[in-house]
C-alpha cells in the first residue's frame, strides 16, 4: 500500500475500511500485515453484530397514518409545554429564595436542634404521600434475584413475587419508611388503582400503622416468616400482599 510511513496504524486500518466500504479494489497490505488483518477481521465482526443488533422495523403505512391522524389535539402541546416551563422556572426561583432564607434563619436565629433519626408514620399517610408524588417507585425491580436480595438485605428474608393475575402490575420498590427506616414498599397497580404493600420485620410492627385511613383507604395486615405485611389500598380486599412469598418456600399463587 502506497501510504506515508508516519501514518498511525489505526489510521491505516480506517483508510482500508473506508476503501472496502467504497467497494474499491482492496489493497493487499491487509493480508500481508497480520496485525492489520486481525483489526480488519475484528471490525468486520463488530460491524456484523451492530447490524444484527440494531435493525429497526418501521411501522406500517396504515399504522403510521392512523397515529398521525389520531392526535390532532397535540397541535397546542408545545405552547402548553412552554407555559409550563415558565411556571416551573418561577416556582423554582421562589423555592430557591425560600431555601436560602431558611438556611440563613436556621444558621443565625434558630437554636440548633437534633432531628429525630426516624419517625414512624401511619402507612395510609405514606401511601397518600406516594400517590401525591406521582406514585413512582424508587426503582423498578425486574429481576427475581435482585428482588429477593432487596428483602434479604433489608428485612433479613428473601422474598419472591408469585405470578400476578391479569389486572395487577408490580411497578417497583421504594423505601418510604412507615414502620421503620428499613420498611420496604412494593408499589403496584391493581385494576388501575394504586396499591402499596409494606413489608418489615415483625419486631418493627407498630400499633399506629393502620391509622388515618379516612373513608377511602383500607389497610390489611398479615404475618408470615417473621415478617409483617400491610396492604394499603382503595380496594375492598387485599389483592397483592399474598403474592409475596419467602424464597425457597413452596407457595402457590392465591386463587382469583
Amino acid at each position: 500500500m502506497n501510504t506515508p510511513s508516519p501514518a498511525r496504524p489505526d489510521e491505516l486500518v480506517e483508510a482500508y475500511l473506508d476503501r472496502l466500504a467504497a467497494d474499491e479494489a482492496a489493497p493487499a497490505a491487509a493480508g500481508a500485515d497480520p496485525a492489520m488483518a486481525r483489526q480488519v477481521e475484528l471490525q468486520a465482526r463488530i460491524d456484523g453484530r451492530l447490524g444484527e443488533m440494531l435493525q429497526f422495523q418501521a411501522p406500517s403505512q396504515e399504522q403510521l397514518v392512523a397515529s398521525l391522524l389520531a392526535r390532532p389535539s397535540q397541535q397546542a402541546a408545545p405552547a402548553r409545554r412552554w407555559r409550563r416551563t415558565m411556571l416551573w422556572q418561577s416556582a423554582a426561583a421562589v423555592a430557591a429564595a425560600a431555601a436560602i432564607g431558611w438556611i440563613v434563619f436556621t444558621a443565625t436565629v434558630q437554636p440548633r436542634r437534633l432531628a429525630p433519626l426516624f419517625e414512624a408514620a401511619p402507612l395510609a399517610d405514606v401511601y397518600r404521600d406516594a400517590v401525591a408524588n406521582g406514585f413512582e417507585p424508587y426503582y423498578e425491580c425486574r429481576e427475581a434475584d435482585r428482588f429477593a436480595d432487596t428483602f434479604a438485605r433489608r428485612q433479613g428474608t428473601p422474598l419472591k413475587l408469585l405470578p400476578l393475575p391479569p389486572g395487577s402490575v408490580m411497578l417497583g420498590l421504594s423505601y418510604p419508611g412507615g414502620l421503620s427506616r428499613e420498611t420496604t414498599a412494593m408499589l403496584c397497580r391493581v385494576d388501575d388503582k394504586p396499591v402499596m404493600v409494606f413489608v418489615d420485620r415483625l419486631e418493627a410492627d407498630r400499633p399506629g400503622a393502620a391509622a388515618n385511613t379516612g373513608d377511602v383507604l383500607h389497610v390489611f395486615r398479615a404475618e408470615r416468616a417473621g415478617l409483617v405485611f400491610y396492604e394499603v389500598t382503595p380496594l375492598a380486599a387485599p389483592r397483592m400482599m399474598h403474592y409475596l412469598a419467602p424464597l425457597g418456600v413452596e407457595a402457590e399463587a392465591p386463587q382469583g
Partner: protein
Amino acid sequence: MAYSRHTDRTTPAGPAEATDPQVFAAHYRAAYSRLALVAYGMIGDRAAAEDIVQDAALIAFQRAGDFQPGTNFAAWMAEIVRRCALNFRRKAKHRRTYPADPAMLTRLERQPPKAAGLRSIASPAGDILDDQSSFDDELVRALNGLSPEARCCLLLRTVESLSYAEIAALMQMPEGTAMSHVHRSRTALRRALSRPALASISPSEAAS
C-alpha cells in the same frame, strides 16, 4: 456553513405534499431506520429510541408546513429526532425511578469483575473469544462509552452504510467531523474488544 443539506429522492415536492399524511408517512418510513439509529445514538436505549422516533413523527407532522421543499426530508426529521432525544435525556435525568437500586449497583461496581459474575473477553494472546454473548455485552458497553454524536455517526455508517456526506447532512455537522467521529469510534470499539496492545501497535512499532 461547512456542510450542505443534500437533496434526496425521498424529499416531498412541496409543503402541501408534506402535510398529506399518506405522503408524510411514506417519506417517514423510508427514513425510519436512519432516524431510529440517530435516536439510539443519542440515547443508547432501543425502546426509548423507538418511542422518540414515534414522538418526533407526530411533532414533525404538525410542523410539516415548515418543511422547505427541495431540502432533505430525513435531515429535517433527524433534527426533530435529536431535539426529542435531548428532551428525553433531560427528563430522564430528573426521573425519580431507577431501573435498579442505585445502592446495589454501586456495591456491584466496587466488586472485582469475577465476584460480580462478569469476566473480560480479552485473552492473553489477544484473540477474540468465541463467546457471542460476552462479545455483545462488551460491544454494547463500548458503544455506550462513546459520545452521542460519535455513536450516531458510527451507527449510520456501519448499519446504514451511509456516506460521510450523508451522515454530515443528517447530523448537521461538517463531513470531516462525521468521518473523524466514525474513525475514532471504530478504533475505540476495536480497542475495547481486543487486547489494547495488540489492537493498536503494529509490528514495526512494537519492534522499535
